[in-house]
């Protein structure tokens, strides 16, 4: 039965987590995402599904609890906002190194430093270019609505377990705080140990049984040759992700003479900008990356080859624009427009940026 509710993006994450059978959530409060843990605590899923919810003493502890839980083969997640996610980088590189699945939600706020509690998209580099040390990647999903906040939780778990890799849901303070109607999926039971082993293999530390060797979750390998081999294996995995998991959406691109590339909140602003621009006779379309890693480079290049210019709109000083430029590789002019420090650009500002960068010439 369909259940449609009005709720905040953060609340949608919490409800979706319970309903898709998450085993554990470990977190530490930070605005603008504290409602995720607050909702979980209020719902008391330990009584209904057996899900563990625990407030840790820090983000460092919470991501390492996620490591411990993921090492047991469980579906575990955490959430935070920018300064907290910076603290989680240690755990994330260790999890990438130990090939552990998990879901991390970053409801981004403006930085650097303690910054502001208003929305921003300035954690793009940190998320898709590493963040922690070593050569690794996080599969990254970028929701642009409360509905997607809910839907992406289960998707993220499926991707995390399919590739045994951490998955980031890169949201921002606007989507976390905005209220929209959301359709929630019916409650699924949590997977049993046997089901998990059947579906994903017997690699987790659930206790060494008679019929298998001991399982060790680790990222240490002192022999360089073997470490290189392991890195090559990781890179091959990321290549597979790039081949199989690219997700994006287009809006009014069929007759477009200009293309905007934007994700998350920015993409929503740009839909309005496109209507305003078209009313002025400027034919512009939007490509919205849903996965930031893997980045939709091919579809962006294909569209770019049919237009006169591409504008990357993001609430940062210009981070994703680097990937847009790499994808387009000089085929057409690429510019960036963004507001910083927690300011959401207005649809009109985007149109002005389009005009001044491309039409005015």
């Amino acid at each position, binding site marked *: 039965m369909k259940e449609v509710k009005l709720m905040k993006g953060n609340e949608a994450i919490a409800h979706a987590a319970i309903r898709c059978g998450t085993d554990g959530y470990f977190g530490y409060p930070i605005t603008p995402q504290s409602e995720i843990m607050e909702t979980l605590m209020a719902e008391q899923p330990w009584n209904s599904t057996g899900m563990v919810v625990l407030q840790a003493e820090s983000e460092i502890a919470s991501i390492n609890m996620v*490591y411990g839980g993921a*090492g047991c083969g469980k579906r575990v997640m955490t959430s935070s906002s920018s300064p907290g996610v910076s603290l989680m980088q240690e755990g994330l590189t*260790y999890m990438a190194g130990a090939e552990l699945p998990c879901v991390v939600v970053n409801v981004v706020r403006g930085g650097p430093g303690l910054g502001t509690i208003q929305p921003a998209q300035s954690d793009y580099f940190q998320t898709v270019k590493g963040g922690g040390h070593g050569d690794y990647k996080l599969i990254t999903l970028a929701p642009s609505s409360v509905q997607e906040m809910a839907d992406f939780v289960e998707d993220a778990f499926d991707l995390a377990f399919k590739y045994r890799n951490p998955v980031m849901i890169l949201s921002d303070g606007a989507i976390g705080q905005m209220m929209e109607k959301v359709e929630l999926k019916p409650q699924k039971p949590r997977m049993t140990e046997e089901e998990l082993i059947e579906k994903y293999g017997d690699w987790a*530390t659930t*206790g060494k049984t008679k019929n298998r060797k*001991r399982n060790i979750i680790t990222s*240490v390998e002192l022999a360089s040759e073997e470490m290189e081999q392991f890195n090559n294996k990781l890179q091959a995995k990321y290549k597979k992700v790039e081949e199989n998991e690219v997700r994006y959406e287009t809006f009014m691109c069929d007759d477009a003479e200009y293309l905007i590339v934007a994700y998350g909140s920015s993409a929503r602003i740009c839909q309005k900008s496109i209507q305003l621009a078209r009313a002025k006779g400027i034919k512009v379309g939007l490509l919205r990356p849903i996965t930031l890693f893997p980045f939709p480079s091919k579809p962006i290049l294909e569209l770019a080859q049919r237009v006169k210019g591409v504008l990357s709109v993001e609430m940062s000083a210009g981070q994703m624009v680097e990937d847009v430029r790499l994808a387009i590789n000089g085929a057409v002019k690429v510019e960036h427009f963004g507001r910083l420090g927690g300011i959401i650009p207005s649809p009109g500002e985007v149109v002005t940026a389009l005009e001044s960068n491309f039409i005015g010439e």
Partner: protein
Amino acid sequence: MKEIIKEENIVYKKSVVLTDKDTHYCPGCTHGVVHRIIAELIEEMGIQETTIGIAPVGCSVFAYDYIDIDWQEAAHGRAPALATAVKRLMPEKNVFSYQGDGDLAAIGTAETIHACNRGENIVMIFINNGIYGMTGGQMAPTTLEGMKASTCPMGREANHDGHPLKITELIAQLPGTCYVTRQAAHTPAAVRKTKKAIKKAFENQMQNKGTSFVEVVSTCNSGWKMTPAKANDWMVENMFPFYPLGDMKDE
């Protein structure tokens, strides 16, 4: 020889829970002794299938190479956070962390104190050799005043380097802990006492009593730059007065 090596003459055997891996520990190091105690206990208690160990960063980073159970390798200092989640998600399993003083009392102080304060139903084994062994003998939080280390070559000076940290005394104050004890492993009698203490710690976990914390005051003859025998003597003379052995709490 053949006549001597007979089943009835054997007083000590290698536990089946110990792997055949050659040790990487220095001669005289107590990590190996404590590993053996843990393996023997797991065998005797019949909990090999249900025990999950959390290994640290430090000399015992490869603890999982020796004890034949499922293991997770934690980032430096984070073992108590991993153990927390493992136990909460699989409460029927036996979970222990194994950590050195740099791991548990420096970089991992917050994780240690908070796991104990929450009363996580786990066993924490703490090897206090007063030094950072793995990275070449730097000062640890537990380095004694006047004790030399590579980052305090003239000896630790409280005014400059801070005081040695009695983390175990601190932990004993926390209501989440049910059993806090300090042991050693330098004589056969001490080894037997440590084994008893770790056994009690595992039994406490099975009875859902809260956190059990077993410190083992140890030597690092390489880091201390002493022969194993000299290191033992030095420990008895200098470490034991500051880190006195015995139970601090048993509830």
